[in-house]
């Protein structure tokens, strides 16, 4: 008798164990190679000194609530310096708008979208949220975000005050779904001291670099030859995000127009252009300009042992807070025909709510516009503000380095509004391009495998 109970217990136990095998875990964003996720790396800069630059577009009413008190819940995914800057802007908004009080809920970046989607699905979503431009189509498709045209015209938001390149990427089927507050493109950083040692720093403090495919390689060759052996000419990770961003930039510079067609249903990778761009980057690895399997290329540049590096603008704040690092920032070189780079934007969205509260929505859009107007605070982490008027402001110009790359906002090549942008990137582009960087697959081979893999994903 006892034995039977024991056996039952044992089998119940193993049954439970097997079942728990099937319950999915809740993972991070999978940054497994020392890559910096684009939110995690900003500097812990002090952000208290937030001088209010009053609404640039004065048309927006400051009190859309008609004297009523409105509380807005706002979900964000920012940490580090970004998190501090956002909180400073919110505090300032709450002070200057006594009738609207915004409450910030900081969520983990890795689980933000999952939580947002589930919460909105249950009717427990926030009044205001954040979305990346590239993620927006997916959120629209799932019925998470609402269109903004009505509420924007009711409060007098001037869409023309935004950079059209950033704004257009947030317009899907003719409807505005988001208020972009920045763009965070892929740019180049250089170590002034090392460039000077190599004789490649001009009088103006900028690199002496011919903007062409050969010119950039010549530049790297000079760095490699003239600098000590332990210096990496070009710090870049060997997998996932950053080399992919460089590939996307060069592919776009060649005239490549995303990897899917305008119908968003057909894979349309331009194999020749893709292979050419991939070949150029693969050569940078095989010829030893980029350190093989660098475990932490951020640290490599930060500790002054790498001459140049490329990543998103969010690194600016980090480098500034690094003692003894003399660096400069610039757009990535124009290797091919037209200027272009990889980039994405943080945007403000109004999630769908159970019952639509017009007052709340008005208050929310006023808040969103305020964040865009005060982009100079947001720019402290390195981001480029979404409004040209902010880029022209004295406050923004007073920040060092940013103006050197602010022009990039016009040349960012956004992905098309596909609901599967992130899947295409994570599950196909990364996978095959990583093999190219490791020298285990030829660029042409990779392109031939990527095309059907994109198609398979789009068909699912």
């Amino acid at each position, binding site marked *: 008798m006892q034995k039977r109970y024991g056996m039952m217990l044992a089998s119940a136990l*193993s049954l*439970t*164990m*097997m*079942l*728990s*095998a*099937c*319950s*999915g*875990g*809740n*993972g991070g964003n*999978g940054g*497994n*190679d*020392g890559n910096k996720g684009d939110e995690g790396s900003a500097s812990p800069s002090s952000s208290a000194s937030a001088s209010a630059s009053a609404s640039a577009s004065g048309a927006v009413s400051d009190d859309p609530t008609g004297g009523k008190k409105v509380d807005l819940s706002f979900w964000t995914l920012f940490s580090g310096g970004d998190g501090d800057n956002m909180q400073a802007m919110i505090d300032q908004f709450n002070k200057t708008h006594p009738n609207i009080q915004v409450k910030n809920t900081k969520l983990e970046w890795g689980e933000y979208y*999952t939580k947002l*989607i*589930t919460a*909105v*699905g249950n009717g427990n979503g926030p009044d205001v949220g954040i979305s990346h431009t590239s993620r927006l189509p*997916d959120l629209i498709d*799932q*019925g998470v975000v609402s269109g903004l045209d009505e509420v924007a015209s009711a409060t007098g938001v001037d869409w023309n005050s935004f950079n059209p390149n950033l704004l257009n990427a947030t317009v899907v089927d003719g409807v505005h779904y988001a208020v972009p507050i920045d763009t965070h493109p892929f740019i180049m950083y250089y170590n002034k001291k090392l460039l000077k040692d190599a004789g490649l720093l001009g009088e103006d403090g900028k690199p002496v670099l011919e903007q062409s495919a050969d010119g950039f390689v010549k530049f790297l060759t000079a760095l490699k030859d003239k600098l000590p052996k332990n210096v990496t000419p070009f710090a870049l990770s*060997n*997998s*996932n995000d950053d080399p992919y961003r460089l590939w996307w930039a060069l592919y776009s510079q060649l005239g490549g127009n995303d990897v899917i067609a305008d119908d968003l249903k057909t894979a349309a990778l331009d194999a020749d252009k893709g292979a050419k761009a991939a070949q150029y980057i693969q050569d940078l690895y095989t010829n030893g300009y980029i*350190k*093989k*399997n*660098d*475990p932490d290329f951020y640290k490599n540049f930060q500790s002054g042992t790498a001459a140049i590096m490329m990543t998103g603008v969010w690194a600016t704040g980090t480098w500034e807070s690094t003692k003894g690092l003399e660096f400069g920032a610039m757009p990535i070189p124009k290797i091919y025909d037209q200027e272009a780079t990889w980039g994405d934007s943080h945007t403000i969205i109004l999630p769908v709510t159970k019952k639509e509260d017009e007052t709340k929505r008005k208050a929310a859009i006023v808040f969103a516009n305020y964040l865009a107007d005060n982009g100079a605070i947001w720019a402290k982490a390195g981001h480029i503000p979404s409004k040209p008027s902010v880029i022209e402001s004295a406050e923004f110009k007073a920040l060092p380095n940013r103006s050197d790359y602010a022009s990039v906002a016009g040349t960012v090549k956004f992905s098309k509004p596909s609901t599967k942008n*992130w*899947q295409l990137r*994570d*599950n196909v582009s990364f*996978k*095959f391009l*990583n*093999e190219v960087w*490791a020298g*285990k697959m030829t660029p042409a081979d990779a392109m031939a495998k990527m095309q059907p893999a994109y198609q398979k994903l789009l068909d*699912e």
Partner: protein
Amino acid sequence: MRISKMRADVQALLFLLPFLLVYVLFTIWPMIKGVEMTFYKWTLIKKMKYLGWDNYTRMFQDQEFWAAVWHSTLFVILTTPTMIVLAIVLALIANRQSRLQKFYRSVFFLPSVLSVAVVSFLGLFIFQPYTGFLNSLLHLIHLLPADQEVFWLTELGLSWIALTLITLWWTVGFNFILYLSAMQDIPDDIFEAAKLDGASSSQMFWSITLPYLKPITKTITMLQIIGSFKVFMQIYIITGGGPLDKTRPVIQYIFQAGFRKNDLGYAATMSYMLFVILLVLSALQYWLNNRKEANA
């Protein structure tokens, strides 16, 4: 007599009720609900569309799924026998009369208390090139030329070795304790008798210790197979399933389908497939064991 037995049963049931309620609500009910999910296109928000058996046909044709199942199986093959040997060896060391006995016991068990994230990041620090512990050590003892690096985490074969080693180090403690207690259960007089008969220590190990460890080995093997099939987190953190998804275990694939591709219906389908695989494996093992016992 019978009535009082029934009363006792009712009383027991009352005590069990709180647990049973929670168990049914959070384990049994989701299990049933999960089966329903496999027949739908089901996103994080809601069920979208009835699909019939589509998720199942898709699964049987999905090469990536079967590749992932194979990777998990390979992980089981790599870790289970090595785990058992290592656990026995460690238990033998800790079971010897020695002043370091307590030290051994705590040292061998200690890694088990770490969380998987800590272990994985330690693994990354140990195996990463240029600055990692292992490559630095190999440089130091001149096994590896100074201008060469071993890329433990990006070469397919090496990354399996790295994953196996880090998992062994992390989880061997629990099995070690099981073996140690089993060894201490072996009656001393058997060893004494063997000694009197002039048996060498290796004879005693092969003819006494090992046979006595047989029952616990069966249990450990079963738990180990089930446990290893569930591998996810350390691979996810250390290699991310790469290179070319060739170390991606099935749980990671399910996770990606469910929470990255937002396709919970398909993820549920694959989960139940894994459940069936494990059920069959366990049943097979159970049957094999019982048959042997019947013969003996």
